[in-house]
């Protein structure tokens, strides 16, 4: 029976001395999916990617890659990078790819594939430049090209959008989407929620070595529940009174929050979508003009903060005036 799951982890644990990097992580990545790993620093994303790449063995649990259990023998068809693309600065972009292709034994059609990949990631015009002069974004793109040598069936990328300008990011997104369309599974990590939203079919949110959410991005957004909204109205004191009268809403101090400053007239409220609708209706009924309304952070980011507990310190309620 052919496996339809590219990565299957069950209660995977990994420790470094006294530090528990992964604590019973479960993960299922269907073949052909772009799957994102997200989490705060130290959540275990890089460790999990390194295990998938076969750089270390799990301490507990099981890990299957492309249908093979990862243990003494490592699964083939997997490529990618963690902690940077890993290039040799004294070699040119083309030499980096050529030597790597030779290493992997892709002698047949090697030159053609190298040229095709250089063009694909937009580095064909600097192919003969030494990598030491490349920007971080160019290195990321060359690292992606290096990972694609030999047409891997599972691509593992750690922060692939790091250092990319908008054009570079769009190109990388196109490449990854195209790969997934052709059946390649992509497992990537990112701190950028907008990247994950634009690219991934599903995401797994890691926090202190545990998977706290796995599912579609849209579902993650809905996990955010109560969001923080910034309001600017024609009558701030009146707005405060009305907001304080709604039990489903919480008034928060605006100082120190994103998009707020100490001297502006903005208010920050926390609540679900329905409660916010109620507030807007009441403000309009009271003749208060609504000049600005928007979430302080995106729903995905809010969900991230809520699920990882990173927003706990900002939960101080401001007494109504």
């Amino acid at each position, binding site marked *: 029976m052919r496996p339809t799951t590219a990565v299957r982890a069950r209660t995977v644990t990994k420790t470094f001395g006294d530090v528990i990097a992964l604590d019973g992580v479960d993960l299922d990545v269907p073949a052909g*999916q*772009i799957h994102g790993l997200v989490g705060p620093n130290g959540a275990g994303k890089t460790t999990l990617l390194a295990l998938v790449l*076969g750089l270390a063995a799990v301490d507990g649990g099981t890990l299957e890659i*492309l249908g093979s259990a990862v243990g003494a023998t490592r699964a083939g068809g997997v490529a990618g990078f963690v902690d940077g693309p890993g*290039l040799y600065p004294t070699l040119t972009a083309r030499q980096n790819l050529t030597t*790597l292709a030779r290493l992997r*034994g892709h002698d047949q059609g090697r030159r053609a594939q190298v040229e095709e990949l250089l063009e694909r990631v937009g580095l064909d015009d600097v192919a003969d430049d030494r990598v030491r002069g490349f920007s971080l974004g160019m290195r990321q793109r060359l690292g992606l090209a290096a990972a694609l040598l030999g047409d891997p069936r599972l691509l593992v990328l750690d922060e692939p959008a790091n250092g990319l300008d908008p054009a570079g990011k769009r190109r990388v997104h196109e490449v990854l989407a195209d790969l997934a*369309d052709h*059946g390649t*599974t992509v497992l990537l990590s990112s701190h950028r929620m907008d990247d994950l939203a634009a690219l991934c079919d599903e995401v797994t949110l890691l926090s202190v070595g545990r998977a706290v959410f796995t599912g579609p991005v849209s579902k993650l957004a809905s996990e955010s529940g109560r969001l923080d909204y910034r309001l600017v109205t024609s009558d701030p004191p009146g707005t405060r009174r009305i907001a304080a009268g709604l039990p489903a809403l919480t008034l928060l101090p605006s100082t120190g929050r994103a998009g707020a400053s100490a001297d502006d007239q903005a208010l920050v409220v926390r609540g679900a979508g329905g409660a916010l609708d109620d507030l807007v209706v009441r403000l309009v009924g009271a003749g208060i003009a609504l000049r600005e309304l928007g979430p302080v952070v995106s729903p995905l980011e809010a969900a991230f903060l809520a699920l990882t507990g990173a927003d706990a310190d900002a939960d101080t309620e401001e007494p109504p005036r």
Partner: protein
Amino acid sequence: MTATVADAPVRAETVTLGRVVRFEVVKLVAQWRIRLVLVACLVAPALYSAVVSRQTSLPADAVYGRLMDQSGWAGSLTILVSLGTLLLPLLTSVVAGDIFAVEDRLGTWRHVLVAVRSPRRVFIAKTIAALTVTLTLLGCLLVSSAAGGLLSIGSHPLPGLDGHQLGSGELARTVVLSWLTLVAPTLAFSAVGLLGSVALGRSPLGLLAPVGLALVLMGVQVMPVPVALRVALPMNAFISYRGLLTEPMQLDALWIGLLVCLSWTALATLLAYRLFVRRDFTDLANDGSARRFLVTGLVPLVGLAGLTTVLVATTTGATGSGIDRPKLEDAVSRSFANLYVLQTERLHRPAVTVDELQASAECDKGGDLVEDEGAGSGWRCTVRWTLPGSTAVGTAVYQLDVRPEGRFVADGDGPKEVNGFFQVRGPAGDAPNPLWQFDGVVDLLDTPTKGQQ
């Protein structure tokens, strides 16, 4: 975007060792530092041999230095001396001492391991690549040093370190063989470089491990340490080629040096291998430590040095400095006799053989109050000989500077007709006087002489 069908399980493709070695060699040769060293190894010895051999002032302190203007091979032998100090350890530092550390500095370990999928194969390939490049550099030094001297002076005979004449063909073979004896210590220092590179990660201390070891061992070499310890250290293998330049050859130190160096190579490589394959490449902070180098690297090597010293002392019976009066008298009289024959030829006098001369020497160190044993510059030897058909006994005096490793320089102290001038005048013109000043070597492990005391 999710595909519903995936292919069958995929097994890891095998990346052959040959491919990994080629990958590593390409990366090494792409470094400007290695290219610079390669060019230097190709050019500098040739230039040195060619230019210095034409000078009036020659590097007399080095073995064969004072003979650089007499044969093109002398330049190669002179350069061989300098390699045994810091040059070869420095070369191994540049190549082997950095071959693992460079991946830490560039952050490319995970990249290499994902591609190769076998830390064991990566280690073997890096080791082979480092040794290949280092031995290539050694080959360049040999070719360059010989070419420079031969093009400048030509291939002429030279006296060995016991004064016997080495013809051009024999000299060529001996020079090449002498260079080959450097392979073993080069391997040993390379292995120490590998160990430092693995154990210390991106720290520059790892890069300097072979040079640091060489400095320590050089310090030991200049001290009056027991002969068993001296020959049981890998540094001694750099100078054991001198035994090839005598007749009969002094091979004990050479074989011991070979075994010692191979032991160091095996142990240091094994320690480096163990450290490398046990390393956790997912742990970013874990790329090496001085403590680990001390505990897992230095302590076992010091233990090996102690063990080999005991073995050498037990198997050879060699004790003390290895330099005593009978050995020195034997070496000086033999060298003198051989060189007297050479001087006779240059002066176009009636031929005489070594046996006919019946040369003997009487040596003393610093007068009656000083024991005639060990290295030092206070040795004075009087050589006596007779000519065929004559009852008269000739005498010549030499001041000796004897080094702890057994090499000595004999400086003529009269009579002036024998060793007073650096040139002799024959019918064909002036020629270098072989008896004016000459190098010799005492076999430190030659125990039978001691038995005759």
